[in-house]
């Protein structure tokens, strides 16, 4: 990975090729580093999905079922009947090109098929040929083209080169949402067994164990205890968070990476410290052990299956409402899909903060509150004892994660929390934050290592904005509210803006919280000195 230096990678040629885009040809061998490996047989088998087999995109023969054309055609017809969005998005694009340079993958690669308009045209051209009068009569003049194996291969390449971040849909005069188009294309690809392992393995794991990482309940408990031990070294307080406890007021749901890998684990510690600090009556669950949901990147059925456990567990444990941790796509699911798929949650109560009395009426139906909403409310009511100066070594910026920004509208809450727990906060340039935010380029199942070149390319806009605040404001920490971000941004930052670390917001909350009975803090949650030793004093 990263064989090319940033200086080489940034030499991007935006001149479109002379070849008409309608001629599909992807050379997978030459483009290693920009695509993801296919799903393993065992995962498709476990999930009961079609056409499991050993194959590689570099093979000439992709071992499609003999009637694959009919399968795709019928599948397309079915989706058109189910989704008005698909019909509209297929019919009304005028190819104005406003979306073209809004995609991080286009900006970082110059590949015209990464323009959202053309990505959608890959599907639209087949739609026109098969389902519209004009396409049937005029064929390619009306923008239609025949579905061939080459087209299918191109779908595999480009629809697993979209992170469903929805930035393009902000700029589209008709709100055409490429995430929706990509989701539809992936539904079609599923039908003939073209899917990637970085999505299907987590989905299979999650179906079985409750979380994407496949962490079984005993390991879950061990991990939580281990993190609490580590935390005790920092604060002098040993926490004992309840797991699967019946009768708690709140079920706390988080992305599994938060109790598995750095730097998410520090965010996890921050959550637990906050709950201890205020005395929240809550429980974790080793069954509903992942709020994240890679089903979103795969199929509506898998999305529903994986999400199903959240309300089931809330009911079993008899909680009143649900609180959710920092995770991007999880929050798209919780906000836009959960209630529709697995509601109504009429057995829960409208969330009310027991400390401030605030009723979260914006969650009256779903009954699930975002931790940033919850913490903002606590801060606003002065319920937290904080020492902001413990974060003084950090000069902090905030990366709006795609889904909280563009699917939930959660923009101010994380900023409010940050400004309350640290003294040095700086925004990145305005066209790269809030609803204009750029993706980490590893979302929607693409955050795997074999796809690293494409991740770094797609990460250019974010990395470059980060570089700007690093150089102008000496920023050394980029915070985010997304577990995928916490996993994918460190290599990205290291590549485009070396010297910047990545953290969740509640890690900084944890640093700043003055816990009752704590030791005098000399280190942060990472175990590093609160005041970094001056370089001249150190023996470098």
């Amino acid at each position: 990975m990263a064989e090319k230096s940033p200086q080489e990678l940034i030499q991007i040629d935006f001149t479109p090729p002379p070849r008409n885009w309608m001629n599909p040809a992807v050379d997978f061998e030459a483009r290693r580093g920009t695509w993801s490996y296919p799903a393993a047989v065992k995962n498709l088998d476990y999930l009961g999905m079609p056409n499991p087999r050993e194959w590689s995109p570099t093979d000439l023969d992709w071992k499609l079922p003999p009637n694959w054309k009919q399968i795709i055609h019928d599948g397309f017809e079915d989706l058109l009947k189910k989704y008005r969005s698909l019909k509209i998005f297929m019919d009304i694009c005028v190819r104005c090109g406003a979306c073209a340079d809004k995609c991080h993958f286009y900006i970082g690669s110059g590949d015209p098929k990464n323009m959202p308009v053309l990505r959608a045209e890959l599907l639209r051209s087949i739609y026109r040929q098969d389902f519209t009068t004009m396409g049937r009569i005029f064929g390619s003049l009306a923008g239609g083209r025949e579905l061939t194996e080459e087209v299918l291969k191109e779908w595999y390449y480009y629809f697993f080169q979209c992170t469903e971040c929805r930035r393009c849909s902000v700029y589209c005069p008709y709100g055409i949402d490429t995430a929706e188009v990509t989701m539809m294309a992936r539904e079609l690809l599923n039908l003939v067994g073209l899917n990637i392992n970085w999505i299907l393995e987590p989905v299979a794991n999650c179906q079985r164990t409750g979380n994407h990482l496949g962490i079984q309940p005993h390991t879950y408990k061990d991990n939580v205890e281990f993190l609490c031990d580590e935390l005790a070294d920092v604060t002098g307080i040993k926490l004992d968070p309840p797991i699967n406890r019946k009768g708690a007021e709140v079920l706390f749901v988080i992305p599994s990476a938060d109790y598995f890998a750095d730097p998410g684990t520090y965010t996890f510690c921050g959550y637990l410290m906050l709950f201890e600090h205020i005395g929240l009556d809550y429980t974790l669950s080793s069954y509903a052990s992942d709020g994240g949901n890679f089903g979103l990147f795969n199929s509506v059925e898998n999305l529903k299956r994986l999400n199903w456990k959240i309300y089931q567990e809330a009911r079993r444990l008899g909680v009143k409402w649900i609180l959710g941790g920092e995770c991007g796509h999880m929050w798209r699911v919780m906000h836009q899909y959960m209630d529709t798929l697995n509601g109504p949650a009429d057995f829960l109560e409208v969330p009310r903060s027991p400390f401030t009395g605030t009723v979260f009426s914006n969650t009256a139906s779903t009954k699930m509150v975002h931790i940033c909403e919850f913490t903002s409310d606590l801060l606003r009511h002065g319920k937290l004892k904080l020492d902001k100066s413990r974060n003084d070594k950090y000069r902090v910026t905030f990366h709006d994660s795609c889904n909280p920004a563009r699917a939930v509208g959660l923009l101010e809450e994380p900023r409010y929390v940050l400004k309350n727990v640290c003294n040095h906060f700086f925004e990145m340039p305005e066209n790269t934050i809030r609803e204009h935010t750029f993706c980490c380029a590893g979302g929607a199942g693409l955050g795997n290592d074999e796809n690293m070149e494409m991740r770094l390319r797609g990460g250019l806009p974010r990395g470059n904005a980060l570089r700007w605040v690093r150089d102008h404001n000496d920023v050394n920490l980029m915070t985010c509210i997304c577990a995928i971000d916490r996993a994918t941004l460190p290599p990205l930052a290291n590549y485009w803006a070396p010297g910047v670390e990545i953290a969740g917001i509640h890690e900084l909350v944890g640093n700043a919280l003055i816990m009752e009975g704590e030791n005098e803090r000399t280190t942060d949650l990472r175990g590093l000195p609160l005041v970094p030793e001056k370089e001249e004093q150190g023996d470098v």
Partner: protein
Amino acid sequence: MGALISLFAVAVLAVLAAVGASVGDGPRFVLGVIVPGVAFAVFLAGILYRVIHWAASPVPFRIPTTTGQARSLPWIRNNELEAPSGLLGVLGRMALEVLFFRSLFRNTRIELLPEKQKLSYLADKTLWAAALAFHWAMLISILRHFRFFVEPVPVWVDWLESADGFFQVGLPVFFATSILYLVGLAYLLARRFIDPKVRYISLASDYFALYLLLGIGLTGFLMRHVEKVDVVQVKAAIAGWASFQAVAPVGVGVWYFVHVFLVSVLFVYFPFSKLLHAPGVFLSPTRNLANSNRARRHVNPWNPEVVGHSYAEWEEEFHDKLKASGYALEKE
């Protein structure tokens, strides 16, 4: 290539109309009465059909794109026009989108300076300005045409014309919207040639629509300012048509037939093409839905009938490990 084919197609259509208009009363009747009548019927029926076809598919999920702060805590100012929490906000958002092209107004273009490792986003409002100019000019031009359809001429048409001809240049007065229409379209066409990205994505049908609209505008312009048409005759012809007492138009010249024929082609083409963006924008689920997801449940009529891995199955599968770790179990 697509650009040429489309230019050729529109030219052929125009010549067809011109020739037809010159050969006798029969073709003139067809071109001046039957074709526009049928075309208009196809236009209305086609759009109606398409909208019903769209509406026949449900909206399974509420998926607005939020472009501002949502309503959450009472002390956080929410942006109702960018992340509407209810109907009023949605109406406002849609009005901004439809009347002022709000989303297109956000347009930027990138500038990459590799040697400095610098990527910038520059405001780029020209597409927005040209699109807005063209669409509004077209709307006002269409409304001005009511002079031909209604007798006596409604007073608002007079107002519209005097406002449109405010600058009092030329005789007959040049309408500002005629200029905006043609300039706007010319820009939209030019960028399809000049901007390599846009050229790459442009289909023959993209050029076809532009040539057609330009042809309509130019012939209209010609009739008013160059080969001046006898307005009284035009009015008589259209009045007859509009009141179903159709006769072949006389004394209106060839340009009239070309103009009317291209309009007819546009009518027929509209419901089968990307021009459906006009009705379609109203149905776009990322814009016309409230971001009230967690407050009000959205129902999907075909909610998939699958369930997850139940707690009971999960407990059974990991029973021994759960027990060894000291979990409280439902079934010992």
